[in-house]
């Protein structure tokens, strides 16, 4: 069992609530302390919550297509606000349209996200990656 705190939320003007509720249930069951900000979360709200709760990771969702616009700059803003060591994940239907996922992943990796996920991702796999990444971050 781990006791890491993670922040969840759907960024921007995005109202897609279902995946978010499932992620909350899933990570809670996996033993994380989950701070779920729900839908329509701004970058600052994510960061405020992470600072407040001492979170080790932020898991950003974007489903509605504006991810490219909404997600840009979050890593820089985290660093600005003193969150140097944060694990930053993003997942969902990240861009407008049916796109090649490789290109989308590269786009978001280069924005500073540690990992980028498609909607069809297997959540058990994410769990493993997350605990690895958190361990590495703690060690490093």
């Amino acid at each position: 069992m781990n006791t890491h705190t993670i922040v969840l939320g759907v960024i921007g003007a995005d109202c897609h609530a279902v995946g978010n509720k499932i992620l909350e249930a899933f990570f809670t069951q996996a033993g994380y302390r989950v701070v779920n900000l729900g839908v329509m979360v701004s970058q600052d709200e994510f960061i405020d919550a992470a600072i407040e709760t001492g979170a080790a990771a932020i898991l950003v969702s974007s489903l509605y297509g504006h991810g490219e616009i909404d997600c840009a700059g979050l890593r820089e803003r985290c660093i600005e606000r003193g969150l140097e060591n944060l694990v930053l994940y993003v997942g969902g239907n990240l861009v407008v349209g049916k796109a090649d996922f490789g290109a989308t992943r590269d786009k978001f990796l280069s924005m500073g996200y540690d990992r980028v996920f498609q909607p069809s991702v297997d959540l058990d796999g994410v769990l493993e990656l997350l605990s690895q990444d958190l361990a590495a971050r703690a060690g490093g």
Partner: protein
Amino acid sequence: MEIVNKKLTDAQFDALRPQVLSSWPTGGDVDFDEGVAFHHDLPEAKRFPVALDQADQARRVLLQPRAGVALLEEHIALLQLLSTAADVLPTTIDAYTRQNRYDEAQKGIDKSRQAGHSLLNGFPAVNHGLRACREIIERVEKPVQVRHGTPDARLLAEITLAAGFTSYEGGGISYNIPYTKKVPLQKSIEDWQYVDRLVGRYEAAGVRINREPFGPLSGTLVPPFMSHAIAIIEGLLALEQGVRSITLGYGQAGNLVQDIAAIHSLRQLARHWFEAEGYSDFQLSTVFHQWMGGFPEDESKAFAVISWGGAVAALAGATKVIVKTPHEASGIPTGEANLQGIMATSQINSMLVDQQASLLPIVQPEIERIRREVNTVLRAVKAAGEGDWATGAVRAFAAGILDVPFAPSIYNKGKLLPVRDNEGAIRLFDFGAVPLDMDTRAFHAAKVKERSTTEGREPCFQMVIDDIYSISKGRLVGRPR
């Protein structure tokens, strides 16, 4: 002061108007009388209410896609492409505009120009303004509807209706609860009274504009009685403001009998309640939404889901069907993918539209059930509002009498928990505070028990999650593997 369901007076409306029109510069171009004149000159073929009427009379099902991109020329080209196969067209609005974030919409327009493709998930009609919207109507040869998800849609309505759009989707509940987090219900209902009153003014000026409350809500395991109750309330609110052409919607659940019963009962119940509340002389139609929850990623599988939606729309005899696309699970569809969805739907629709009658006998009991549930809930809403539907709606959500599963709004209780039964119909696992009668509760409980016995597990939240994923994973009932 609580909101009341009362037709806005001209004075009230005119007092609000300047503020609405000045909320973004393009509001200044709106001229109601010029809009009315333009509508009067519109050919029949471009009028939404006419198309709906003709379809119902001919017992045909109209096909309508969703579509909207950031830039005007691209948007018109897209609609022109789709008009080769669709019966009626949309202009789907982007998500920034829906939240009145016109600055961000502008950024999206600019970045789309740079990128050479749309970075917005819809057409930002307010930013483009009246002239641009008018061009859509002028250059597209079929009726066009504004489809969005906007809690405060007053400016959008002023601009697009003056531009010549002949149908406007949404409502104070259905465009709040599933689409927002913190907008008070009272506020959105008030703002939609304005929209409905605007439509009522067009009506009074001899211009019929169709209004369509958004039926599917969260699109996720919504039991028919709940979406029906909300649709009927929104219909009543619209009627009061002078709206006369109303299309009530329903999102496919997946069980054949329940879905057909839903369309029949929606039509019957709406007529009953509208008349019981003293309205007459309205034009009522229905819209069936192909599966609104998570889609399978594989395009062939998506075609099957689309086709099943088209099949049930035809067998249920809906006036209109909203068509999904093989790209649904992945992203906003290209024009071609959108056409594919329409073609598949068109084929199955016309193959089945003559076969409605034979199914009537088996849907009667389910119609009866939905009727009973809706009547119970609507009576409770009316009682909560002490006779007033607007007050009633606000109080009913606060009390959990109305409750939409998986909706993001903090004004929604979220205590109602749906689950599929053994045949895939949506039943209730937790009634929350919805005041259903004992027999109805016993029926739901028995149905859920039947399934849990089949699966050898207690009804639980995991079962609900399994049902949420089920269609995207190639089934209807989310059985354990």
